[in-house]
């Protein structure tokens, strides 16, 4: 379970300070898929980076399974599986070697890594390319490798930043099924997207972010009720105030 309270993060830029995240609060529960929906540049990636300890919030509090990532980064990192916006894989290693490298960095034993890698290769449908070097992989194959790598240590909480970015329809469908499986297994799944349909189809709870602020959140039904729109996509657009940067 992930709880975020009043997160703030400001970056210095040539034109002056930019408030990337400006008071974001939400909760992502176990056994649920929580979606962060927002146009590009809304602050989704920065919020996630603070969650997985890559960035320090200027203000606010994060609690992951009762722990503060700033105070206890190590156990928090162990409980998180992260697919960052940057999902580069090592092109001179095979997909399986990429997975094993991270397994070792999480302190796992060789045998446990091999067993877990097999399971992930099956679950993500990677059999055909698992033992090939990742150079020349398609976007979908790279993303699957990166997801398997992120989940090798069986994390309780799974954070995915725009996981379906650049994937074809079939791969996207497969990935959605995989996320539903994680939910059924009781994981806390948090993912971000700027694709309204995807969030509508998958999420138990939706957090709508724009300009670094949470503009609406709740279950799909609650969102429809809050905005008075019967169509979820219309509800999103109404909450954000514009459909710029969103994708149907």
């Amino acid at each position, binding site marked *: 379970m992930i709880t975020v309270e009043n997160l703030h993060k400001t970056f210095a830029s040539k034109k002056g300070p930019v408030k990337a995240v400006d008071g974001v609060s939400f909760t992502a529960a176990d056994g649920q898929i929580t979606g962060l929906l927002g146009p590009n540049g809304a602050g989704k990636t920065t919020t996630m980076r603070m969650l997985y300890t890559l960035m*320090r919030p200027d203000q606010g509090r994060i609690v992951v399974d009762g722990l503060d990532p700033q105070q206890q980064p190590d156990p928090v*990192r162990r409980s998180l599986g992260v697919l960052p916006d940057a999902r580069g894989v090592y092109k001179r290693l095979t997909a399986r070697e990429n997975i094993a490298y991270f397994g070792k960095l999480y302190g796992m034993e060789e045998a446990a890594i091999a067993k877990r890698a097999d399971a992930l290769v099956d679950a993500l449908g990677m059999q055909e390319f698992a033992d090939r070097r990742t150079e020349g992989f398609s976007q979908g194959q790279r993303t699957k490798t990166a997801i398997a790598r992120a989940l090798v240590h069986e994390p309780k909480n799974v954070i995915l930043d725009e996981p379906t970015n650049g994937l074809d329809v079939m791969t996207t469908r497969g990935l959605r099924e995989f996320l539903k499986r994680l939910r059924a297994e009781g994981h806390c799944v948090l993912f971000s997207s700027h694709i309204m349909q995807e969030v509508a189809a998958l999420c138990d709870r939706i957090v709508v972010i724009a300009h670094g602020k949470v503009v609406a959140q709740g279950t799909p039904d609650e969102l429809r009720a809050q905005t008075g729109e019967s169509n979820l996509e219309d509800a999103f657009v109404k909450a954000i105030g514009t459909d710029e940067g969103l994708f149907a």
Partner: protein
Amino acid sequence: MNALLTVLKKELTDAFRDRRMVMVAFVVMPLVFPLIFAGLGTLGAKKQTEKLENALELPVIGADNAPNLVAWLEQNNVEIKPAPKDADEAVRSQDSDVVLRIDEEFGSDWRGSKPARVELVYDSSRPLQSGTTIARMRTLLQAYADQMGTMRLVARGVHPSIAKPLRIANRDLATPEAKFDFGQQMIPYLMILLGFIGGMQLAIDSTAGERERQSLEPLLATPASREAILSGKIAATAVFAFLSVFATLISYKLAFTYVVSSRAGGFSMNLPMSSLGQMFVVILPIVLLGAALLTALAAFAKSYREAQSYLPMIMFLPMIPTMYLMVSPVKSQLWMMAIPFLSQNQLILKILRKEAIPMDEWGVSLGAGLLLVAIVWFVAARLYHREQLAVSG
């Protein structure tokens, strides 16, 4: 520690699968340096031998003024050439290394037992081209003068030794190993330079390259500490550099043993493989320093290209102490052992000369070197903790 070893192993696996990196470190570098030095060495030795043994071509002005001297020179392997129009011009334009001008009064001075005047025209600013010839000419003229002086004394019934108040005996204390040649002189520099930058590709690729390929962010999200990740990358760079130095030394030795010595007789190189271990200990701080510095730079730079643009400056560093020594040669002293590059240069020379290295020199050299490594490592670790590190573009 486990994470460090994991990163080290992965980076080396990754690097050894990079054909270009392996080619540069283990084929190009080990071939280029020995070829350049062995080639230059052979050429230099050949030139030297030619200038010493071939007939010395000597344009003479006023050869008629001293027929005996000219005849004596011809007997001593000097080929007399006709006088150039302008002696100064002939030397300046490098047509001749040296021109001999015999004074018109030579005959009368000689007969009057007054010092007869001969003039050597040369340009001392080109010692490599004409130095040997000039020295050879001076020696010949001196020999003629001595010979004639002795004969004059004998003719006057004076024992020639009366004019030789000194008898200079030479006792050279240099060990045979210390009289090393061109090939060996380059070894310290070669080892230091290659040890320092031999892992540059790996260092830049494993930090700046990893960020550019967007795999640094997930790596930094793992529980492995940044210090462990950084140290693993530095260690991989150092191992790679060591292997590159080793490969180059082997190829260097082979080049000098089989190519050079067989062509230019007597020009050989003694690179004792037994002292190799000692030499590797000497350059250990340099290798680690290079690895840490390159990794710090790669973490500091915003892109792969920016990191690469610092390389010329880095390559220049090891040359500074060597150049200082060339300009101002000084006696080896203990404080020098604290100066990186300078200290390693001196110690490798000592090992090659088979001189014993006192414990205090070992201590200062390794201590000062490793202290500097620690400082650079600390800076690199600070850079690795910056939020901007993982975020590319």
